[in-house]
């Protein structure tokens, strides 16, 4: 193994249940099925109760992630970030030092994206919105999504197919371009 210790970068892929986070991360990751888990304590369950949680000693939240080696000094980790507010106890740690985030929107459940977008805005985590068109028949219009999510006109909203590597690559290029633009404009 190489003795060079790479600097790692973190990109978050946030979205509600079934939005396709795991698929998107897997499409670009160079290694298969990495996942870690965090134990959910009673305090972190908060007000959003989980069915049956009271019967369990510990509850775990699985986090899927992927790795992308850009060069011997730079590795990008993409973390699938559960978008539901009940998992928000993990958002702080995931957000720290994050290069940026992709909010993977599901047009059937746009409301799922509200809380995590709100969080990224408050924490100044740069993000773009990608609408996953995996279902193939539903009509998706980025302009409608922008209005529904009340997004600024300069915030990129794009369509993607989370199963396709090239499509996911375009999403990541868009995100990093957006972050670069923000840095160049001093925001």
């Amino acid at each position, binding site marked *: 193994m190489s003795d060079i210790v790479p600097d790692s970068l*973190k990109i978050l892929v946030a979205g509600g*249940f079934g939005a396709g986070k795991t698929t998107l991360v897997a499409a670009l990751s160079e290694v298969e099925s990495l996942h*870690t888990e965090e134990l959910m304590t009673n305090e972190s369950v908060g007000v959003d109760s989980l069915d049956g949680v009271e019967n369990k000693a510990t509850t*775990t939240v699985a986090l899927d992630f992927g790795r992308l080696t850009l*060069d011997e000094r*730079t590795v990008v980790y993409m*973390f699938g970030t559960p978008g539901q507010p009940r998992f928000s106890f993990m958002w702080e*740690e995931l957000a720290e*030092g994050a290069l940026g985030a992709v909010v993977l929107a599901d047009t059937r459940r746009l409301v799922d994206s509200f809380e995590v977008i709100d969080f990224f805005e408050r924490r100044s985590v740069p993000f773009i919105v990608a609408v996953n068109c995996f279902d193939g028949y539903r009509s998706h219009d980025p302009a409608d999504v922008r209005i529904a999510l009340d997004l600024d006109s300069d915030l990129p909203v794009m369509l993607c197919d989370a199963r396709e590597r090239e499509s996911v690559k375009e999403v990541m290029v868009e995100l990093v371009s957006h972050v670069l633009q923000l*840095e160049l404009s001093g925001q």
Partner: protein
Amino acid sequence: MVEDKETASDTRGRLIRPYFLTRGRTRPSRTDFAMTSQVVATPQPEPVELGPEYQSILQKCAGPVSVAEISSHTHLPLGVLRVLLADLLDQGRIVVYESMWQRERPDTGTLSTILDRLRAL
């Protein structure tokens, strides 16, 4: 389509409670184990008797590997892993490297390089 696995699940197949491994400690002696920090085992002059979880962690980080990946490979939950990593760090058996970008966003030069590399994939 790969299913999202974020639904809270029970600890299937786990025969002992996770924090048994840490002797009940839920906080590491240090807190500098970001998920993307890289861990490398230090060469040990002679074999030592360590618990199987410690051995397993050390085997995974013969070369630089992230905390998140160690968690994935050892199936240890992050919270538990961090306590065990802190023990190994205290004993001088591992070195931890925090990413230059753990606390701040990359500069524009680095972002441009990342962009070029991504496009070239």
